[in-house]
């Protein structure tokens, strides 16, 4: 395909503004898949993605399009992940494109991720086409959104297109606008190869399939290539483009989006944002903006049944095949046996990994409380980085401690401002700016500890603003903090897997809340079970689970034995998901309840 007839674009939007739905319509319209085979939201291909409605991995698709003028085009749509945990991936996807459809829900208007994605697209010089979606809804406020486009984004509101991704209205105009307004890629086919990795996935037949945008030169089978950051060399076996499945091509030229396969074993060998060039005649400079994605949230995973450790190990390996940002190493706990210490991009990432292990591999697992990575400065001058409470040194050796901070951008209707400010204060946030976008909406920026956000910040923000506030964050730096290790004792035994590092002033409230949650989750035993929270030697919270109630003395329902048996069967299934700690049975839900604490 001639460069002039290629358009590379992405759709950027706040969650739920309709990105996936619009992508589906495009695909349907391009006719590359029959309507019968069409599954809604074809681009969100993982089950979990479809269920949660959140795009986790970038996906790309090449759609043929014949414009009104009769020209044939190849439109490359690159779908961007839809969650703050994955903002680096979004930035690389944006980098791979010349244009972006900035999709805005006509009933919601501009939200936090609309803005952050907009700035990202602006930074990369993309042609931005504002698209107002969901105009079919009676509550849509097109004029209001146009006003925001004008005043908050500084774009020409008359350039905005109106669509209903759901009903498929306005698609023709939108496709024409893409052809007309998004610049064709430039890039010299004769120059040395320079291509960007924006994603990769594992395919059981081909091995690692690397998703790339070629900026300069040509990539074809038999080429010997080099990955810039790792210096690793590979021989290209296959190149191609994304139809619904992979479609082989002779080559990939400057300006094109596609994939290659080169016998790469694991996707961790391909780093998102990295540059590819030829061994012979390499480019002189890599593409800019590459960075190693580092996990920011850490937690250990243990199988509920210790016999499942080997199976867990092999599931982790398989997960890792498709999830380069998951990092892990072997870990062990006195209470839970062998498991893995894992690093995640954020809490959503953690939840997704958990769901995948349980669903795709059928394993019952427990997670320990998520932690951020702290810097501990010891009195002997040493500095250690720890994310595992078990490695926390004795306080007498500690000079000072530091924890990571984020810059959080929150947009909210003004009526919830008071509540949100209180929440941020409670989360140790410091306001750095407040900016009224119009009479009704305000943007506030806070610097706050990441550790406060990994717990229940997002859920609470949503609930106290009835879903209207939106949130985005980026990591800034480390700041001094006052850290203690909170231990949880069940039946007087400390359960190491429930220990956590907390800000000292929060320890008391956190301990109480955890003890309370655990007391609701741990079933009654034939004996009383005390649950205590302790810092060092002092007990700061306590709950007691009374001994079992003899429910057999309840009225027996005549001949309905089936009902009783079914209840027992359910209880039995629940027991399989219990972890024995000492002589107490802890259900998986007890560990999960600790992850979401603080809601009183």
């Amino acid at each position, binding site marked *: 395909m001639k460069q002039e007839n290629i358009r590379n674009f992405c759709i950027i939007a706040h969650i739920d503004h309709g990105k996936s739905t619009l992508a589906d319509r495009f695909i349907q319209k391009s006719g590359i898949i029959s309507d019968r085979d069409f599954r809604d939201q074809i681009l969100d291909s993982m089950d979990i993605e479809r269920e949660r409605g959140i795009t986790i991995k970038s996906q790309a698709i090449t759609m043929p399009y014949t414009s009104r003028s009769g020209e044939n085009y190849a439109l490359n749509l690159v779908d961007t992940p839809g969650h703050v945990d994955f903002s680096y991936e979004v930035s690389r996807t944006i980098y791979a494109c010349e244009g972006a459809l900035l999709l805005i829900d006509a009933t919601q208007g501009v939200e936090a991720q609309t803005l952050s994605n907009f700035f990202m697209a602006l930074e990369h010089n993309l042609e931005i086409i504002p698209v107002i979606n969901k105009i079919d809804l009676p509550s849509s406020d097109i004029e209001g959104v146009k006003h925001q486009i004008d005043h908050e984004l500084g774009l020409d509101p008359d350039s905005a297109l109106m669509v209903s991704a759901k009903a498929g209205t306005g698609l023709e105009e939108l496709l024409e606008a893409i052809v007309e307004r998004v610049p064709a890629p430039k890039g010299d086919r004769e120059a040395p190869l320079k291509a960007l990795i924006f994603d990769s996935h594992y395919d059981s037949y081909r091995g690692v399939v690397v998703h790339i945008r070629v900026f300069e030169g040509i990539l074809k089978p038999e080429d010997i290539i080099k990955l810039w950051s790792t210096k690793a060399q590979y021989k290209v076996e296959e190149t191609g483009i994304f139809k619904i499945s992979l479609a082989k091509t002779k080559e990939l030229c400057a300006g094109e989006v596609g994939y290659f396969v080169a016998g790469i074993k694991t996707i961790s060998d391909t780093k998102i944002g990295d540059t590819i060039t030829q061994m012979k005649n390499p480019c002189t400079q890599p593409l800019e903006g590459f960075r190693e994605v580092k996990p920011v949230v850490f937690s250990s995973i243990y199988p509920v049944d210790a016999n499942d450790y080997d199976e867990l190990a092999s599931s982790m390996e398989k997960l890792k095949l498709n999830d380069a940002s998951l990092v892990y190493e072997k870990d062990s706990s006195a209470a839970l046996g062998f498991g893995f210490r894992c690093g995640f991009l954020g809490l959503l990432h953690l939840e997704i990994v958990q769901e995948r292990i349980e669903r795709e591999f059928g394993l019952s697992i427990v997670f320990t409380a998520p932690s951020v990575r702290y810097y501990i400065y010891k009195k002997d001058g040493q500095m250690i980085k720890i994310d595992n409470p078990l490695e926390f040194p004795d306080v007498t050796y500690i000079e000072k401690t530091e924890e990571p901070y984020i810059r959080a951008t929150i947009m909210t209707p003004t009526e919830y401002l008071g509540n949100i400010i209180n929440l941020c204060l409670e989360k140790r946030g410091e306001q750095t700016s407040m900016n009224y976008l119009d009479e009704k909406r305000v943007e506030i920026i806070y610097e706050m500890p990441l550790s406060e956000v990994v717990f229940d910040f997002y859920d609470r923000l949503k609930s106290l603003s009835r879903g209207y506030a939106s949130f985005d964050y980026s990591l800034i730096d480390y700041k001094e903090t006052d850290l203690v290790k909170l231990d949880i004792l069940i039946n007087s035994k400390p359960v190491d897997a429930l220990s956590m590092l907390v800000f000292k002033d929060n320890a008391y409230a956190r301990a109480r809340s955890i003890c309370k949650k655990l007391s609701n989750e741990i079933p009654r035993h*034939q004996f009383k079970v005390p649950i205590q929270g302790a810092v060092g030697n002092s007990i700061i919270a306590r709950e007691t689970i*009374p*001994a*079992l*109630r*003899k*429910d*057999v*003395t*309840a*009225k*027996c*329902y*005549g*001949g*309905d*034995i*089936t009902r*009783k*048996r079914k209840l*027992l*069967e359910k*209880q*039995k299934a629940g*027991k399989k998901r219990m972890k024995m700690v000492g002589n107490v049975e802890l259900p998986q839900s007890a560990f999960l309840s600790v992850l979401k604490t603080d809601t009183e």
Partner: protein
Amino acid sequence: MGIPDYIEPGKLKALALYIHIPFCVEKCDYCAFYSVAHSKAEWQEKWLQAVRLEFAKCRKLIGDIRISTIFIGGGTPSLLKLPLLEGLFKEIELFNLDGLEEYSIEANPESLSPDFLDLLKIYSIDRLSLGVQSLQPEELAMLGRRASLEHTLEALELLSAKWQGRLNLDFISGIPGQSQASLLDSLEKAIQMAKLDHISLYSLSAEEKTALQRRFQNEGLKHHPNHDSLWIKAYCFLQSQGFLNYEMANFAKPGKECRHNLAYWNLKPYWGFGPSAYSTLPGKKGVLRLSYASDLHLFNGRADKALAIESLTPKEFLTDTMIMGWRLKQGVSKGVFLRRFGSSLEDLLPGFYDFLVNKRILLQSKSHYRLSLKSRLFLDDVLLELMGALDELPSGLLRVNWPE
């Protein structure tokens, strides 16, 4: 159609009958039994009509197989208009009642009348079970009972004056606000006032979808904090009064145990009629569990459509045997077990049997698999172990011969 194809009447020697009368004045807050409040006279007539048809199908199938016990429960049987009740009794007389061992009916205080008692006498109904629940006005109110304390006391007086048959009173322990003294006071007064031979003492539980459960969940009503010790105190008190605990929640003067309920606990064939009623019957290919949907109008319209039939696997039937049998103080007869499952428990599940012995769950008894009182109170734990052990048993190994 429906029923007859599946059941194997040839295996029946005797049958226990249950009839469910699904009407109540109003719903009590704690009640999860199926019953309809504020019903129209016409619904009750249609109900009897439907029962008649089901009876006829049953009789056609079982011929003159003997009925061993009858229990008319509910709901509130005493609520039915007397002619309607009489219609039911007449219908029941069409079964073979030679050698009937026990004929029970339930009643509630507010609808207990001399005429009702007279009618029972005419039809030889010899056992009455009255829902008292408590003799403290606050506790009755807490339960959302219709009958006031006065109603209840009047009913007890009426019974002591007029009722010659056997008598059971139902009580509830663990009512929020109940004290040890108030519970024992209720029991003691009742024992003094009426000539009873049987007491059921249930502990209050918040069943799904009841008003009580909503009150616990939404209105901050607190469960009784000393629920268990309250029940144990009452247990000791009743024992001392000569009412011996023979099943988890049931106490009787020696020889006065409820034979109909014993048929459930010993898992003998029983056939229940009416919406929400259950049956366990021998089928052509194994044991069957029949159940009518909890839906009066469906039952009244097309009772056969309301009937679900489930075939029990041998493992399920063994589980059911122990779920029911271990509620009994005497436990499960070793002879019955051997005949029913073709092998002893120790041969069938040696690991589980060792567990029972080592943990001192099983009491020493030549004739029965009998649990200690404590294990009976934590019966669910024992049953879960049993079910785990049964999972390991190859399914071909178990054969069922029932009724034995």
